[in-house]
């Protein structure tokens, strides 16, 4: 039994994809922790990577002084722990993302405020 309980004990998860207007994507900019935790964003998995970069990320991270210095060609992208090379026209789904996946990006050379990961 996966729970030590006195009787039958099964309950629905509260956050399956069907309960949201769009699947949830967790997003984080590594080494930039003035954004203390990764963000939760409801986002269609048909969104293409170019739009993620140009529309989603600026809204989330544009306030950081290093954001405008990002050289996008140098950026390292992760789906969970897996590094990948994005195709600008490829959708999130095509890059392996689904409901409750984590999208992280890393910007070599930009390690947060005074290199503090802030």
């Amino acid at each position: 039994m996966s729970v030590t309980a006195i009787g039958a004990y099964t309950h629905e998860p509260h956050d399956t994809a069907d309960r949201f207007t769009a699947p949830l994507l967790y997003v984080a900019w590594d080494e930039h922790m003035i954004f203390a935790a990764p963000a939760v964003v409801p986002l269609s998995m048909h969104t293409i990577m170019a739009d993620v970069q140009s529309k989603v990320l600026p809204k989330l991270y544009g306030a950081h002084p290093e954001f405008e210095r990002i050289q996008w060609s140098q950026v390292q992208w992760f789906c969970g722990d897996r590094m990948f090379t994005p195709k600008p026209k490829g959708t999130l789904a095509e890059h392996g993302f689904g409901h409750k996946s984590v999208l992280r990006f890393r910007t070599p050379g930009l390690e947060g405020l005074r290199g503090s990961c802030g």
Partner: protein
Amino acid sequence: MSSIDLQTKEIKPARNTFTHVARHIGGDKPASRYQEATIGLQPTQNFHYRPTWDPAHEIFDASRSAIKLADWYVLKDPRQYYYANWTITRARQHEAVEANYSFVDSRGLLSRMTDEVRESACKVLMPLRHVAWAGNMNNTYICAYGYGTAITAPCNFHAMDHLGIAQYLTRFGLAVDDPGVLDAGKNDWLNDPRWQVLRRLVEDTLVMKDPMEMFVAQNLALDGLLYPLIYGSFVDEHLTLKGGTAVAMLTSFMPEWHDECARWVDAVVKACAAESDENKQLMTTWIQAWADRAQAALAPVAEIALGEHGQEALAEVRTTFNARIAKIGITL
């Protein structure tokens, strides 16, 4: 002068009490410590996990009782107990108990008591340690599974009171006799046929599920008949006449406590019944059923205590009890 100084600095309160308290007491006005320490303390929603011990209910779940209340905070405690004033009250009563022990001790009152009185007292009171233990269990149950701090907090205090009574009875036994008296009492409780009807009733309350029915069975029906019978008819009247004043002194906590708590118990039952006809019907059925059972269970105990006058005394107690219930607005 200083008040004028304060005014010039305008140290004015922004509010008189907490918003959730204000909603219950009819607006933002100074609230009592009882109100601030009671109203809204129990969470009501957004529970993350079902209990592993009762997956059919939420952690706090009003549907554990058949009683339905729109607002469980109508079950006010007229004594306005929160932990501090409850414990202070009990400590003060305990000082009185200690004073009585000193008095009884210094006057040698126990040694002046006849063996007959001593034995009769022990015979009746020692098995009641176990009844008090069950009262402790049952009120702890209501505290755990009841709904809303207004009822659960005083049930916690009431549970502790019952434990206190069990310990007072133990202390009494040890004061008037050797420790074997406790075993003898337990033996009677388990084996003497005259205690078995009561023990059956008590064990039945221990497995009840509805916390409000348990409240009625334990705190109103059983205790409402037992305390007047034992500490009124038996100790205060019967034993005192036979030179057992010391017994009355050493158990003085119990009748005083019962009178105090009866006001609270009545207020709870009254508020439940006042809410709806359904509640009133439930309360009536419960009181009728449990009071009848308690009376029957106490009949042999009354005989141990009062001999041939037992039934008469118990009938009187029942009459008084029915009058008490009528005052709540319930007709049996």
